[in-house]
């Protein structure tokens, strides 16, 4: 299996662990990912607010590049997936828009590219049976809530592979890995997305209730499919804790990191030390190897 790979800007920077774990897991599953050469930013959510047409034209350049390679385009980020697939649909549906987009681009786009979310590829193209065969360390003791976010399931004219109110693909994948998957009423409730940039107060209320519900149902970690969700739930978690005087301490892992653990991939290769909320306890419970605290290591290695 071979795909063009569109990591998107954050996977090259603040969410490297998603890129690392994606590559490691795909290699194990026999999925060849060829990074789309010279891809550009899809415009994220900001471009749509600023100029709608730009938000179609920016992904279109990537679609044109993917079309030349004649491979399906795999996107692990919910927002990148949404933007690429949406631009693709709009261009395919409207000859007028297709012409307008081609008028501003140096590379022509004929409308034949296909965009898939990484989760969709793993669950529906690779299949859970193949995933099951790759497991060497079933995730006993992992009580996980599947958090899908928004753009991976909505709108259904773009995200077409799962139910938009109560999706199951991530649930089933995590169950296949041997984890205990808890019912999670917040699985498709928005984390606040980029609102955190200009209105932390409002965004934190949205993020906080997702994390609190996860704790309430008894989870010891959250599985996510999107770098923006991850940033809100993971990177901002300590700020939420101090602002509202609550204790959360809930590790937030990419579904690929969780898959990697079950497949016996070394935690370092999955970037598990890059998550902002420490993942040590999760890694320990799965691998049985206790992490030596930094301080002790320094003392032992010193002198």
């Amino acid at each position, binding site marked *: 299996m071979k795909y063009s790979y569109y990591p998107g*800007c*954050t996977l*090259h*920077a*603040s*969410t*490297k662990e998603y890129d690392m774990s994606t590559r490691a897991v795909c290699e194990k599953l026999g999925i060849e990912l060829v990074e789309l050469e*010279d*891809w*550009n*930013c899809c*415009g*994220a*959510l*900001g*471009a*749509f*607010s*600023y*100029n*709608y*047409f*730009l938000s*179609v*034209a*920016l992904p279109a*350049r990537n679609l044109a590049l993917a079309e030349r390679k004649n491979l399906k385009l795999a996107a692990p980020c919910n927002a990148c997936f949404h933007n690429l697939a949406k631009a693709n649909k709009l261009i395919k549906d409207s000859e007028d828009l297709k012409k307008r987009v081609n*008028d*501003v*681009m*140096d*590379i022509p786009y004929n409308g034949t590219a296909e965009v898939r979310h990484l989760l969709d590829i793993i669950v529906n193209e690779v299949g859970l049976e193949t995933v099951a065969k790759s497991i060497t360390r079933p995730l006993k003791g992992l009580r996980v809530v599947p958090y899908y976010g*928004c*753009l991976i399931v*909505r*709108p*259904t004219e773009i995200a077409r592979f799962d139910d*938009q*109110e109560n999706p199951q693909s991530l649930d089933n994948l995590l169950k296949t890995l041997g984890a205990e998957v808890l019912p999670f009423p917040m699985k*498709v*409730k*928005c984390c*606040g*997305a*980029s*609102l955190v*940039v*200009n*209105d932390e107060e*409002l965004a934190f*209320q*949205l993020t906080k*209730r997702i994390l609190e519900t996860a704790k309430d149902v008894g989870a010891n970690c959250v599985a996510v499919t999107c770098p923006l969700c991850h940033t809100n739930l993971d*990177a*901002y978690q*300590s*700020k939420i804790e101090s602002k509202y005087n609550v204790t959360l301490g809930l590790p937030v892992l990419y579904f690929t990191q969780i898959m990697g653990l079950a497949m016996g991939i070394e935690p370092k290769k999955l970037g598990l*030390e*890059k998550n*902002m909320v420490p993942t040590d306890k999760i890694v320990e419970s799965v691998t049985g190897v206790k992490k030596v605290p930094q301080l002790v290591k320094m003392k032992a290695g010193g002198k």
Partner: protein
Amino acid sequence: MIKAKNLDPNFKYQLSRELGGENLEYCFNCTGCACGCPVAEVDPDFNPRKIIRMGILGMTKELIESESFWKCVSCYTCFARCPQDVRITEVLYALKNMAVREALKGNIEIETTKPIFDKMFIDSIKDNGRVAEAMVFAKYKLKTEGIKGLMEQFSMGLEMFKKGKIPILPEKIKGKKQVKRIFEKAGIK
């Protein structure tokens, strides 16, 4: 009280002509969009139904000045639940686009700082082909909240830097001129 003489009957047509605004007039005011809207659940001032209604009635000034549509997180829950396919999330994009254009012409002033961030974000794409997220974020915080606002992000930023999550230099693509031309040809300033 809403007075008919203060309404702008043409506004709904203007909005419908924007990309994303096409289905505005299908709305029959059922409130399905407001039920389940995550922002409305935590902020009673935000109501997507009201925004659509104001658009259809032509309460242009009140709507644009309220700036409430900038709070939309683009989660598409309203879009999913609308029985009339109004495509509310998209209509809100159309409204934001209109507001930005009016602000660029100097006709209105936008108090919400989100468009400032959006502009810095797309400028980064225009220059490099990709977005240098940390740099854009820091620049935005400094501009809108000053040194104090920037410093509030410092500890998180430092932690991320230590974990190798913030590159020192922005990534640039070979085809950055192609990307710049997209902006130029589309007339986006």
